[in-house]
């Protein structure tokens, strides 16, 4: 019979450490006692994992059928019009966004974000390629930078939130995201359309976000200001 020197509780015969505080149990009278029966077996029984991968494969096969039907119908009935490309590319886009994460064994947010960014770019490129008459270069100068920029910012935001920031810091991060996304979008559009570096109307949103940002950063850093605000505006 042994007792924990820390907790004062009796422990099972032959036990090597206290179950409550992990303090080693050394009973001089029972040094050679190997007669220990654990309260539970060591074997851990893990239930079967969910079959989300199996379900995703089934959905993929189900999605494949209407696409094949569309391609065959297109080629047989209207070979001069490639309308089935829109159906297939839309299905692929849907598949990459909503089914692909369940197919891969280890879901990593950055891999999924990269795949989504590429899928979106390819989807837009299909429209660009089929509809461009050789004049526009909107895909390279407008769509691709916007796609890459927005996904990069989402990845950065994801990285920041993985560090579990405080509520105020989270608000700062979200506002920074909206401000940066807003200014970046406006810049890219203006550069493409008017070849000028300008932000025009969207600057209003950006400035509003910036003011809020400054406010949050100030309250985060200045405890006196935070206390004063809490005192004055409590409700």
């Amino acid at each position, binding site marked *: 019979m042994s007792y924990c020197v820390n907790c*004062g*509780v009796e*422990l099972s015969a032959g036990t090597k450490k206290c*179950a409550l505080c992990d303090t080693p149990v050394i009973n001089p009278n029972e040094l050679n006692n190997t007669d220990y*029966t654990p309260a*539970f*077996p060591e074997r*851990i029984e893990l239930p079967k994992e969910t079959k989300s991968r199996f379900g995703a494969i089934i959905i993929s096969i189900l999605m494949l059928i209407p696409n094949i039907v569309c391609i065959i119908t297109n080629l047989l009935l209207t070979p001069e019009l490639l309308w089935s490309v829109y159906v297939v590319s839309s299905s692929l886009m849907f598949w990459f966004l909503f089914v692909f994460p369940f197919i891969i064994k280890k879901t990593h947010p950055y891999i999924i974000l990269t795949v989504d960014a590429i899928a979106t770019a390819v989807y837009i490129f299909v429209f660009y390629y089929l509809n461009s008459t050789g004049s526009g270069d909107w895909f390279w100068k407008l769509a691709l930078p916007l796609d890459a920029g927005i996904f990069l910012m989402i990845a950065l935001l994801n990285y920041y939130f993985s560090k579990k920031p405080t509520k105020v810091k989270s608000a700062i991060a979200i506002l920074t995201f909206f401000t940066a996304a807003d200014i970046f979008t406006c810049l890219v559009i203006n550069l493409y359309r008017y070849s000028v570096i300008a932000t025009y109307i969207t600057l209003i949103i950006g400035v509003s976000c910036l003011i809020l940002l400054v406010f949050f950063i100030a309250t985060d850093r200045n405890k006196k200001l935070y206390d004063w605000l809490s005192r004055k505006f409590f409700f």
Partner: protein
Amino acid sequence: MKKIKKNIKNKTWFKLDNAGTVFPGQNTQTWSNVIRASINLKEEVDPELLTEATKRCLPRFPTMAVRLRNGFFWHYIEKNPEPPVILPDANNPCRRIKFNEDNRYMFRIFYYKNRISLEIFHALTDGFGACVFLNTITAEYLRLKGYDIPVGGMVLDINEEPKAEEIEDSFVKYASKTGSEKLPLFKTYHKKGTRMPKHTSIITTGYVPVDEVKAKAKQYGVTITEYLAGILMYLHIQFQKAEGKKQKDVCMQIPVNSRNQFPSKTLRNFSVNYNLRIDPNWGDYTFEEVLRHLSLSLRLTNNPKHLSVMFAANLAMEKNPFMRFIPLFIKDLAVGLVFVFGAEKTTTSVFTNLGVAKVPDEMMEHIESFILMPSPGRLNGARVGAASIGNTMAITFSNMYKETDVEREFFRFLVREGIHVKIESNKQ
């Protein structure tokens, strides 16, 4: 009466009772609301005899020998023709129950050395029903071993026909026809820690002598349940104070067996939860003050009229014609969301005390101890179950966190109070 008997025997499906309707919606791939009851015998368990005993007992429990089915508007349970599942115990009890596993049974029976354990989905029954089921199986097992075990207490006669009052939904029978109340929702303190890997938890059982605990509780002028729940509440107040953050309410959930207040003999769910709160912002509480607060709150609220009104409040949703016609998948989704955003957020911890597991004296000779525990929570760090047999009370913590601060401080508190504690755990 004859007609009723015939109906039960031939009945192939049952509605879930009022409390049981919510549990399937809360069920996830990693968590189920499971009750685990165990009996430690004085000799090693023979799995073949245990399987035979379980098979013999099942016809006596028509609402346990079932599988869960989805109707268009509600879940229902139907007779399960498959053999029951008897498994060797593992290190991680109270794993999730999936409705298409284990021969579609919603209970599992485990054996390990001299212990028989029953894990049952809460939709079928509460702690009392689980204990009656386990005790009846154990009594039959001992009979197969050659001992003469009579019927009585929590051991039912398996040669009898199931009775109508055992399968009734007592919530409906005893709900208030006139009164109702809105259940208050408060966000409360939760002691957090490092989560254990999926499907695992830390189980710690402390065996204490009933007479010592009873004497100590009597010294404070409270019952055993109030005394032990009071310790848990006091410790959580101290934990929160040490964390130094904004002080939230500490709320103990105490499930109460309504059979003590109403003449019900049902083996299905018939317990409700009292949520007893204390606000640490009111000042520093001594242990005696916490105990007095909890004891008076429980005594004020625990009466048949209040219980009856609580049943009515729970039934209101089920009886609402608009709610009844909502398809099941939407109901399940809503229940799941309410559970995530409400439920455990409103309680700090759970303390459930079965009381004395009453078995015939001839059976007592073969039993060392009786254990009851709730499944680990999804937000509540340590949930506690207690049950006693003879002079041994088993207090069991099921904890989803690696840190065992609550258990450690709880049992240390008992030791400081002069109560002898013996500890067992699944910690490796």
